[in-house]
């Protein structure tokens, strides 16, 4: 659904204007990631920023509603509907043990040879002395709840200081 506003579209619920700049920035970053040239990157690596931004954006909305309770339910549902956050991914974050899941591909057993989850779901202490792992789906370096992944997959992000 397009995020374009015209005189025919319904107004966004209140509170949208406060978070709008952050969302716009995410949108811009996403466009940049989509248009990035593929030089110097592996075939799978070119997609990693997309997944990362998607995770970050959904995380932002999730934290606003569930953790900080800074937006109304109405606005939250509006955001989900308009595609500013991924409802399926947020649904996973509500489950025990999946609080920091990086993306939906990594927990999909149908995507693997032996019906397991991605390597990034393995807790860090079990994966001892093995060097840095970047999973092929999204470049995640470990998203199990105990591995201190933080609220973003991969290395540290430049989180906006809004709200």
């Amino acid at each position: 659904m397009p995020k374009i506003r015209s005189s025919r579209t319904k107004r966004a619920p209140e509170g949208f204007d406060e978070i709008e700049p952050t969302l716009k920035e995410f949108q811009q970053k996403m466009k940049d990631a989509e248009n990035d040239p593929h030089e110097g990157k592996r075939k799978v690596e070119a997609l990693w920023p997309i997944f990362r931004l998607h995770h970050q954006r959904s995380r932002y909305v999730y934290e606003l509603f569930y953790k900080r309770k800074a937006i109304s339910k109405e606005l939250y549902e509006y955001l989900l509907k308009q595609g500013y956050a991924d409802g399926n991914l947020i649904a996973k974050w509500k489950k025990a043990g999946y609080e920091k899941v990086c993306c939906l591909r990594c927990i999909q057993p149908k995507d693997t040879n032996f019906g397991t989850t991605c390597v990034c779901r393995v807790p860090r202490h079990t994966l001892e002395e093995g060097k840095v792992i970047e999973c092929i789906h999204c470049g995640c370096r470990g998203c199990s709840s105990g591995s201190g992944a933080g609220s973003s997959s991969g290395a540290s992000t430049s989180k906006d200081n809004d709200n």
Partner: protein
Amino acid sequence: MSQIKADPNKVSWEESEFPILCETCLGDNPYLRMTKQSQAKECKVCTRPFTVFRWCPGVGMRFKKTEVCQTCSKVKNVCQTCLLDLEFGLPVQVRDTALGLADEAPRSDVNKEYFAQNMDAHFQNTENGLGSGGFGKAESAGREMLKKLQRTEPYYKRNRQHICSFFVKGNCTRGAECPYRHEMPAGGELNHQNLKDRYYGTNDPVARKMMSGPRAGGGKQMSPPEDQTITSLFITGITEDIKEQDLRGFFYAFGEIKSIVVVLKSKCAFVNFTTRMAAELAFEKAGSGVNLQGVALRVSWGKSRPVGARAEQKGVEAAPTPAAVMHALETGPPPPPGSKSKFAYPSQDPTYQGSTR
């Protein structure tokens, strides 16, 4: 798996349920997960499509897969991935020269395909033992030699990751998460191996090296001592019954023994003399073989080992003297990582023979 074919020339694709593999390729873990894909790749030898099996032979190892088809592996009685003999774990060339087998597997295009097709039918019909059946007298002598050449333990190093070619060039951008080995490749003849050569048993550098080595070298006496600074003898054939005392008791007659190191794992021992003269005398008298505790041992010169960090640093002999070792031990704790020396301890140096005590 046997299919009734109306037309003997009709090509039917290979289907197999389990690969023909050696224990080393399978790895140390008795629990394995293996994927099977029918007709996933073409056989590296006969270029026919075959079932590819893929598995992980252990933690930190690369995933291995079958490279040649079952028919080709049955023809030569080799493992489907490493192409080494299933019985001995030795290259095809070594086994064939030892056992006097002259396998006439054709190598050129149509000939090869025709042969493979026929062998396919043959194996489907016989379906029992692979490789040669009964063993003649000439073969048992060969088998003895092959048994001596065998490895005692599985060599899992061959399951390691391949060398990162970007690292060799100096520009691996993946850095820490690179799954390939960041080491420099060991140069030399062994770098240029060819699968077809290894399979057919012609022109195999590993086989050549094995057959010219001391153990298989036949009765030929080793040439007089080469490098003048080597004062140690290399004894092979050591079994558990032979103790350091026995060796000492035998060799002390030739001169003062600096040290004796016994390595049971590889059935060998080093006898280091203090003087070159003593070593030469010992070799003269005992070079043709020693008989201790009823076991026949082979004696040869301690080979000058490949150049290690110590030799590079000092630029002197291959084997450091006790004085040098003491100096290294006394110059305090090992240097912190990132310093120039590649080895923190003298015992890590491959050119150093014997122990540091």
